[in-house]
């Protein structure tokens, strides 16, 4: 298949090239070069300070071997998986959909108030939000303890993963809610009406009428929030990966190793592994989306 045979815009090869060149240059400068550079750094013993900062040595695949053998890395990978599944795939999707579904029929004012509150959680700066949550979960006079009468429970220390999963669900639900609200608007009311007349319960309506209409939205939503959550650094602001690595998701692990520990080479190798995982997740969802068509 040649380019000209599908030249619907009638630009011709030359002008088409001219059109995409700036974009390709930007992609090269800000995506391809950094990625290649990360691969290169990942094969050195480059450090933030010391002799290896001035004269990094090529170490081949040592960093990758070290990562695969590093129990901290495997622990971190597992925690990231839990974090994505718990807070994005389940937490944000379910909460976002539930909100979008229930808010359809409520008075405009209630809907406005609820949507604003959920949106606020999403748009407030991370540092402020982290401060609020640290105060909320604190073992020393924290709000949650006051509500539950569990004086002295330090949630971030005793349940670090559960804390950051609930936190991220709260933080990110707005996106799913907005996307599902729009998607639900596209479900023909007549079909829902017919289903109801035929005696379908809420679950049957959701499964047989709503889901087929919004399947693409669900996949797009899951893809985006999985990737965002996978790369999310905010848990660091709550737990700094602790106590003793118990909530050290991959971005936090890389930060702790590369910048706090100064092992830039090792951190780059793990960044590259993360990049590959990102690509795999993206490809997986894109496949699913294609199958739909």
């Amino acid at each position, binding site marked *: 298949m040649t380019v000209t045979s599908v030249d619907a815009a009638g630009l011709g090869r030359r002008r088409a090239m001219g059109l995409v060149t*700036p974009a390709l240059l930007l992609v090269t400068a800000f995506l391809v070069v950094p990625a290649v550079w990360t691969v290169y750094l990942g094969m050195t013993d480059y450090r933030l300070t*010391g002799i290896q900062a001035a004269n990094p040595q090529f170490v081949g695949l040592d960093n990758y071997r070290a990562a695969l053998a590093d129990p901290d890395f495997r622990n971190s990978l597992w925690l990231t998986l839990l974090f994505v599944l718990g807070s994005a795939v389940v937490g944000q999707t379910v909460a976002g959909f539930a909100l979008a579904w229930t808010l359809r029929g409520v008075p405009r004012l209630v809907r406005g108030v609820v949507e604003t509150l959920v949106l606020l959680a999403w748009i407030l700066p991370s540092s402020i939000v982290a401060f609020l949550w640290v105060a909320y979960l604190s073992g*020393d006079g924290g709000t949650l303890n006051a509500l539950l009468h569990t004086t002295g429970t*330090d949630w971030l*220390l005793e349940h670090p993963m559960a804390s950051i999963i609930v936190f991220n669900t709260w933080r990110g639900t707005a996106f799913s809610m907005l996307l599902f609200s729009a998607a639900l608007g596209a479900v023909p009311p007549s079909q829902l009406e017919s289903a109801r007349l035929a005696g379908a319960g809420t679950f049957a309506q959701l499964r047989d009428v709503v889901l087929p209409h919004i399947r693409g939205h669900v996949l797009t939503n899951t893809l985006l929030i999985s990737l965002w959550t996978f790369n999310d650094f905010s848990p660091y602001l709550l737990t700094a990966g602790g106590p003793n690595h118990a909530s050290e998701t991959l971005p936090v692990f890389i930060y702790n190793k590369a910048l706090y520990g*100064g092992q830039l080479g090792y951190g*780059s190798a793990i960044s590259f592994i993360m990049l590959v995982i990102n690509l795999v997740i993206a490809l997986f969802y894109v496949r699913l989306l294609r199958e739909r068509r």
Partner: protein
Amino acid sequence: MRTISTHGVRTRVLAVVATSLALVGAAACDRSSSTGTSPSQNAGAKDVTLTITSNSIAGGKNADEADWYAKYVIPTFTKQQKAKGVNVTVTFQPSGVDDEQYKTKVALDLKSRAGADIMALDGIWVGEFAQAGYLKPLTDVAGPSVTSWEGWSQIPKAVQANASFEDKTYGIPAGTDGRVLYFNKKLFAQAGLPADWQPKSWQDIIDAGMKLKAISGVNPIQINAGTAMGEATTMQGVLPLLVGAGSEIYSGGKWQGDTKAVRDVLTFYKTLLDQGLENKNFQQAAKGRDQSFAAFAAGKVGILLEGDYFWRSVINPDNGDAPMASRNSDVGWAFIPAREPGSGVGGSNDVSMSGGGGYFLNPNTKYPQQAWELLQFIGSPDAINALLHGSAKITARQDVNEKVLSSDPFLSFVSQKVLPVTHYRPGLAVYPQVSQALQQATADIVSGKSVDEAAKAYGAAVEKAVGGADKVSSS
């Protein structure tokens, strides 16, 4: 679009990596394309801008130091220069974060050839910064005349080492410190312990802790552990205990690996935790050290191991981070004892660890001569006296120390009794990695691992960090 040189790409990549990872954007942008400055650059300039940075901030961490820059150093220096016909604009970049975060920020600044002209740094970072080429000897940055500064003769060699690496001087030292055990006399009285308490062994500390435990709502003992406190775990926890167990972390060309001394230290931690004498949360929380300070100031900690910084800057009733109004009457201090009498390094009964920081010139400064002038001013007796403004601190200068220390019983104790029995960390670039391995070992103990497991993992980590089993002792 602009063409990008290899160097530009590299810096930009670092910038992307740093900002995306660090979130708070650790300032890794390339501001100057020059590859270094000559000492005479801009020497005759009439309009000069200089920046000072340190891990201090008004109303927060090390507030007295931040106020000193803003209220004394900057106005006085500007006035002095004005009299010479030079317009200087000096700005202070504050920070109020953990030392490790500050170190990372400064390292990224220097890596991208940016950052403040004068930086306050911990002496233990000098080796790794110098090896990385981030810092250059003073004579390289400001010229050979720096050796004729009047202050050098006032600063003892041990203190000068805080700003040196491999016999080269990189900055002007700011002073030194010593570590002691602080205790709350009120709680001691309640527990039936003496107001002039001086433990002779680790067992004495445990015994006192057991008595303090009987008072409800009190954390009997706080000896730092865990990774969240960073170097504070090493300096105010592992290392003073280690010298009390008879071993320095580095001696005779070998680092301590999975040795008996290391296992003794970890066993002591384990006992404290198993007996409920040490609050786990303080060791694990991201802000645990600050929480422990606040608890001590509120009279809820019995015994706490810290440097004189704690007395001066943390529980200082006037401008401390966690001011304690009753400090002078309620807080006692004691030597850190060796494991048993005579078991410390060199057969000593009492031990301590010391360190200290200094002020350093950024090799990328646009105004090396003016920056050096400002540095000398910061190290002058007048400026140091202004920083103390009536209070006391062990400064770098003997002429100042002779006058100020006698007025403060606590600091004379540190300078006269503690400094003679103290030890210093090895000034080697790899030290911070060993230190992190020590922190991890204590974190393992806090999270419930056995001494054997923690010591074994530590030994392996040290071997990896220092590059081989032949540089590690393991018996």
